[in-house]
């Protein structure tokens, strides 16, 4: 009963947020709707007992990626002679009829492909009762520390590369006379 309510709320938040991202004309608002969508996905994770993933979704997306995006929007907002590129006035580059037409075609084509796959999956869906939820943190930790230890270590190299790369790219150029 409660699980269904939680699932419905999360699903509504997820899909509603995603649609709002599509239709929002304001980049800042799109970012806020994206936050709502991430929240809903966290709820969906919680519904299938993936509690650690739900918390990770909150920590990494709601706390990290969204803030990063908000900062990036503020940093690319406007130039000295062109204020208000985002915000109350419509942002300059949010797309036009032609791009929406193209997007619609792409969406229809990819959804046809995907629906075919999903239909195949659903035809063979087992209707067995769901197993009870087990705590995931310990299992994830055990697997991360044994079977997937290489992936664990390599992810730190990936993060190191991302940190150094992004820091080098976005670092303001120092003046030559400094």
């Amino acid at each position, binding site marked *: 009963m409660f699980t269904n309510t939680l699932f419905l709320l999360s699903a509504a938040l997820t899909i509603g947020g995603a649609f709002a991202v599509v239709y929002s004309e304001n980049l800042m608002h799109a970012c806020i709707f994206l936050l709502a969508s991430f929240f809903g996905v966290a709820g969906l994770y919680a519904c299938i007992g993936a509690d650690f993933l739900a918390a990770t979704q909150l*920590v990494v997306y709601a706390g990290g990626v969204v803030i990063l995006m908000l900062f990036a929007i503020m940093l690319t907002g406007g130039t000295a002679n062109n*204020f208000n590129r985002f915000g109350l006035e419509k942002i300059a580059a949010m797309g036009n009829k032609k791009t929406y037409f193209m997007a619609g075609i792409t969406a229809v084509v990819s959804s046809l492909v995907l629906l075919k796959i999903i239909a195949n999956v659903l035809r063979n869906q087992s209707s067995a009762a769901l197993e009870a939820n087990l705590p995931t943190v310990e299992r994830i930790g055990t697997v991360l520390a044994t079977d997937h230890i290489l992936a664990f270590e390599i992810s730190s190299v990936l993060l190191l590369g991302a940190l*150094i790369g992004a820091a080098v790219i976005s670092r303001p150029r120092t003046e030559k006379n400094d």
Partner: protein
Amino acid sequence: MSTFNLDVYMPVVILIALALLVAGGSLLLGGLIRPHNPNKLKETAYECGEEPVGSAWANFNVRFYVIALIFIIFDVESALMFPVAAVFKKFNQIGLGGTLLLSVFSFVLILVSGLIYCWKKGDLDWVKSFNSQPQLATKDK
């Protein structure tokens, strides 16, 4: 291993609903009884009595982004570290603590090298010119 019921998430949903209720309720209640007579001057942004010039939504310094960048990398690192840290005690008890300690060490040290790189390159300095000219104030004497 013990299973858990999804009912444990009830308080979370109830508390979020209560937060919306408290905030919305107090605003609605206030809306019924508080005065509402706005004028043009009241609705301008506060700039110490001056008329605001331009919009506040201008460009910001890149250093904010670099800070957020280092933050998100360490945030993700912590997300990966939490489950490993949670099983460390168990692994230690069955005698596998050494290998886990080694992997945790290498994981953290690889990331720390990134922090050291940013430190050396001056990304962690808020004001870069501060260090280059510290004697300005004392030169006058």
